[in-house]
């Protein structure tokens, strides 16, 4: 089962490597990982998308919690949450027909063309993993994908629930 973990940890040298090391050392899966400092510069927030049954997830959460640098861990998938990812994708747009088609698909998915070259368009799209997958495959049917990059998932709980210190 796919899970999204949100982790708050000390923004210190080596903290990230401890998390990544833990996952590889204990053969836990990482589908994506994003990290950046929070509004409180002493803290970083990591979002990890992983896979595992309840037993494995319980171990992952406990093991992450055990790291001295970690303040909070939560499984966002346990309750209502929002997840987002950003995609930047460069596709071939050689002639009018394919340009119109690419623009049409981008519109439907509420993406934006953010750069154009002689024969290429670069498009930006945000959404959850499912939407991004659908966009990539629709585009791929229409034209050639030259390059793409995904940010990996970030997530936050819905409503009052918050992951914060104190």
């Amino acid at each position, binding site marked *: 089962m796919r899970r999204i973990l949100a982790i708050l940890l000390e923004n210190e*040298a*080596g903290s990230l490597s401890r998390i990544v090391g833990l996952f590889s050392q204990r053969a836990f899966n990482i589908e994506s990982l994003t990290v950046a400092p929070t509004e409180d510069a002493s803290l970083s927030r990591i979002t990890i998308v992983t896979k595992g049954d309840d037993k494995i997830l319980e171990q992952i959460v*406990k*093991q992450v*919690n*055990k790291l*001295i*640098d970690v*303040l909070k861990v939560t499984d966002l998938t346990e309750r209502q949450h929002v997840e987002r990812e950003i995609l930047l994708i460069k596709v071939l747009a050689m002639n009018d027909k394919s340009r119109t088609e690419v623009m049409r698909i981008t519109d439907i998915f509420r993406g934006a063309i953010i750069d154009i070259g002689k024969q290429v368009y670069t498009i930006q799209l945000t959404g959850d993993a499912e939407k991004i997958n659908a966009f990539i495959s629709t585009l791929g049917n229409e034209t050639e994908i030259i390059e793409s990059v995904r940010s990996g998932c970030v997530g936050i709980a819905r409503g009052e629930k918050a992951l914060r210190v104190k």
Partner: protein
Amino acid sequence: MTTERYSGAELVVKALSALNVKYLFGYPGGTVLDIYDALFKQQDVEHILVRHEQAATHMADGFARATGEVGVVLATSGPGATNCITGIATAYMDSIPMVVLSGQVPTGLIGDDAFQETDIVGCSRPIIKHSFNCRDIAEIPNIIAKAFYIASTGRPGPVVIELPKDLLMPGQSAEFSMTTEISIRSYNPTVKGHHRQIKKAVQAISQAQRLVIYSGGGVIIANAAELLQVLVEKLNAPITNTLMGLGGISGLHDNFIGMLGMHGSLEANKAMAHADVILALGARFDDRVTNNVKKFCPNATIVHVDIDPTSISKTINAHIPVVGLVDIVIKQLLTELEATDFSVNEKDNQDWWQQIEQWRKVKSIGYENEVKGSKIKPQRVIEAMYQATNGEAYVCSDVGQHQMFAAQYYPFAKPRQWINSGGLGTMGFGLPAAMGVKMAFPDSHVICITGDGSIQMNIQELSTCLQYNLSVVIISLNNRSLGMVRQWQDMVYGGRHSSSYMESLPDFVKLAEAYGHVGIQINSLNELDEKLTKAFAIKNKLVFVDVLVDEKEHVYPMQIRTGAIDEMWIKKGVKA
């Protein structure tokens, strides 16, 4: 107010001394020479010079296991630091409080593959509780204080501190300031069991008809042995110990049914298999205990008390988890038992003990005495060793058959008396660990029980022993082979003894003498007791006792691979 300023190296030593560190086990080299210079100029902290950094870690480890204090190691960058890896991993697996100070190349050279640069923080990352990179000289004392705090609280473990040379040299200086009240916002181990869980635990215990207490190293670490005995007697429950937990209850106590697991007693493993409630205290259901987890005690309700939440339901699902320090939780359990007017159900309890007596009668811990003229049985040596020391020695073991024989045949009356590498199984641990113990308790008998293979993994420390007059008694069960490997080859690999012989063994008596010690060889049964007694009577000299034992002996009982916990070979070809 003092405004005196110190170099980083001086700050290191001042911090150690402020933390009451008596001994620092280490080996010098380029990046830590400033620390050695600072050590030279003071008297508070004594540096013990080993002959290999691995031995420094095991010495610090032995010292920590025997005293409960933090063991402290100092090594230079690069090879000095990497030589510590095995010792750090050994301490990590057995939850031993240790702080390792490692040199590092100057900050400006980090990342350049400078001479003797290794990323020791990176190398040690999977085998430490925590680690620190020092990048600011003023922070050195606080980092050291935090390292000690982390190493010794919660579930203890090793902490590595990397000290770049430029921070240690006289060029930079800072005032000495070290907090005594340490608080780390991201580190707050739970010490007290949750009251609801305590209630549930007591309910399960009270309703049990066949209760077993299964206790491990956590009881030793938490100094909970006395409380444990009260609990055992209050419940009149059978108690088994893990290899790490021996001494948690006296090996002579009526309720003690022996060690459990791979080479545990039949009665211990049977009792576990038939229990309806298992109360696990500071133990972690590792694979050397459970055997096949799929077949593990299917009918038991498991109450699992541990300081480390990750240990709970990792391999075996706990029905009633209790996170907390074992001593505090036992107190809570006793209070709750009191509050609920607990009394032992005599009928159930008697039936249960009668059943256990049946298993005890098998005498699974036993061996066939030698016939006239045959070689000495290794088990017999442990019994003689027990007699010669009144059962009061610290026994520090290496890894192999001799380790299992010692665990089976030397009943430990007290916690911290049995010191061995249980989790990692590190050959070479025994001698330096014994040296660390002797350092702490110079007036006690300290034995290193070892084998002809293991002793050669840190034999160079005989030289350190001479320098510091560490009169350890080394008892080597010399079977001219890597006995435990050979046993597996006999049992699982069709008797093909691939590389399990130790050809060209040295003359250990002469070797001991060459290092300035006493060497004694024993090769017949009729001289065993007398020569051992003599060895223990020699004061202020290290004695190396080389006992030639029967190389064909196997360790029994032994769990049958992939079987349930109580499926065992009792002796060659005989199943329980």
